[in-house]
């Protein structure tokens, strides 16, 4: 498999956790995105590995809750050989419900099922309560991330 995949991770019914899927919605209307695969996932590691294995470029968008930066702050990580940049990837820290992209990247690395290039966008959320509406700062960040992804893809074309 080759090409580009954009993976939106999150739950649309938990407000800002839906930032990843919202970026997919924004890209779905973009001409640039027609040549790329858009995949919405819940963040379960095996499915993430399946979605990105063997592609040239995989871009993952997920919401963050660091409580260290202002809501709507976007963090972009170009994951090289060190998947540790994605935080705890041991997968042993907690139950299966707390596994994330770091775990998926470590699993993908161990299995030899990584994309050639992996970029992760994290969007700091404000409200992870029940509901479908994104907070205003995250709505703005979603537009920004979609534009940056479109530019990123145009850049490799």
């Amino acid at each position, binding site marked *: 498999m080759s090409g580009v995949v954009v993976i939106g991770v999150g739950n649309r019914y938990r407000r800002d956790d839906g930032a990843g899927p919202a970026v997919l919605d924004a890209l779905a209307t973009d001409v640039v995105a027609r040549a790329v695969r858009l995949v919405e996932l*819940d963040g*379960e590691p*095996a*499915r993430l*590995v*399946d979605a990105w294995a063997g592609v040239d470029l995989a871009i993952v968008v997920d919401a963050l809750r660091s409580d260290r930066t202002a809501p709507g702050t976007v963090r972009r990580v170009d994951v090289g050989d060190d998947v540790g940049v994605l935080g705890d*990837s*041991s*997968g*042993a*820290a*907690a*139950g*299966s*419900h707390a596994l994330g992209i770091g*775990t998926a990247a*470590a*699993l993908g690395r*161990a*299995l*030899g*099922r990584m994309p050639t290039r992996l970029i992760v966008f994290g969007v700091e959320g404000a409200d992870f309560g029940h509901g479908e509406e994104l907070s205003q700062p995250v709505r703005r960040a979603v537009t920004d991330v979609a534009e940056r992804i479109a530019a990123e893809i145009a850049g490799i074309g």
Partner: protein
Amino acid sequence: MTHRSPASRTLKVDAIARVEGEGAMYVEIHDGRVHDLQLRIYEPPRFFEAFLRGRRFTEPPDITARICGICPVAYQMSACNAIEAACGVTVDGPLHELRRLLYCGEWIESHALHVYLLHAPDFLGYENAIDLAADHAAIVERGLQLKKVGNEILELIGGRAIHPVNVRVGGFYRVPTRRELKPLRERLLMALEAALETVRWVSGFEFPEFAHELELVALRSADTYAVLGGRLVSTRGLDIAVDDFDAHVVEEHIAHSTALHAHLLERGEYLVGPLARYALNASQLAPEARDAATTAGLSPAERNPFRSIVVRAVEIVHACADALSIIDAYEQPDHPAVAVEPRAGVGCGWTEAPRGTLWHRYELAADGTIVDARIVPPTSQNQPAIEHDLFHFVEANATLDDDALRHRCEQLIRNYDPCISCATHFLDMRVERT
């Protein structure tokens, strides 16, 4: 964190790893005897039963599916059974077979996840599946491929892999054509081989010496390894119908758990799940699974919970073989669902979730409004049994040092594949020794 003094110790695990959800364990040991032991479930209660009240009788399959991302089909099927019983409707024929096929997908996915990613690292000395994958990539890859086939069944029959959307009271919104099932057949043939290899692999593990004398409880039906219904039977003569469950099972609130503890009235703790199903219904497994179990050295008299991983692998073989039989015999039904009209009444339904028997009860008003709902998931039934096993295991192994004992206790808990999120209405382990 661990405290130790010559005569007493406390072991605690604040967040038990490789289980579904969040829980803890606390053990206090005085002079080699267990003084206090708690499997603590601290996930917040979720109130599903309360917010089902006032909803339409058609909604529980979609609402209760949300209880669990690993076993949503179990919730959907138990809910459908219960509501259809309340409305006097029976779903049989190809629709019933499609439900079993969907359920096979869930068993394959859930069991493959547990065997490969959550439980096998315990037996092979790895901290987690990623470390296991670093040394044995092909093995972990096999587990992920099995899990994927389970997902594919859910996607095709259920509309998507998590919280399927194609299930309704009375059947489905859309049923597949024979032609649509054909690619699944090829994938299942591959999965069956991978499942047989899984049995050979896990049966070679070293298992700690331990056996329990718990009452084992599972559904039994006349013609198949029970999944979608039957009577509830046990190794000590229990034999009840679905409507009698709440007359025999009592649930009580325990201070250290947001999950209710279940007991059989005047009999005490009991165990549901793969070991119980195998003990009671082994002769009904698909021939491939029966042969694999025999070759692996299993017998229905197996009472070592550490060998549940072998039973789970055997059940993957069964689910693959059963799914293939269903596909081969499938004739597309004329209608995707049977009509279900509401009526005032009470209906109960149960099925065998990957972790054990899951019981639902609904009381409906004449217009189909849900007046009352009760859900008894397998992990809340197993919680007293897990504590019972831990008590005896810790007393038998009190000479182990704290780290070794704590590791074995966590492994023992994982024998039961507890689904804490399902049970909260749970693991952090602490052991205190004096």
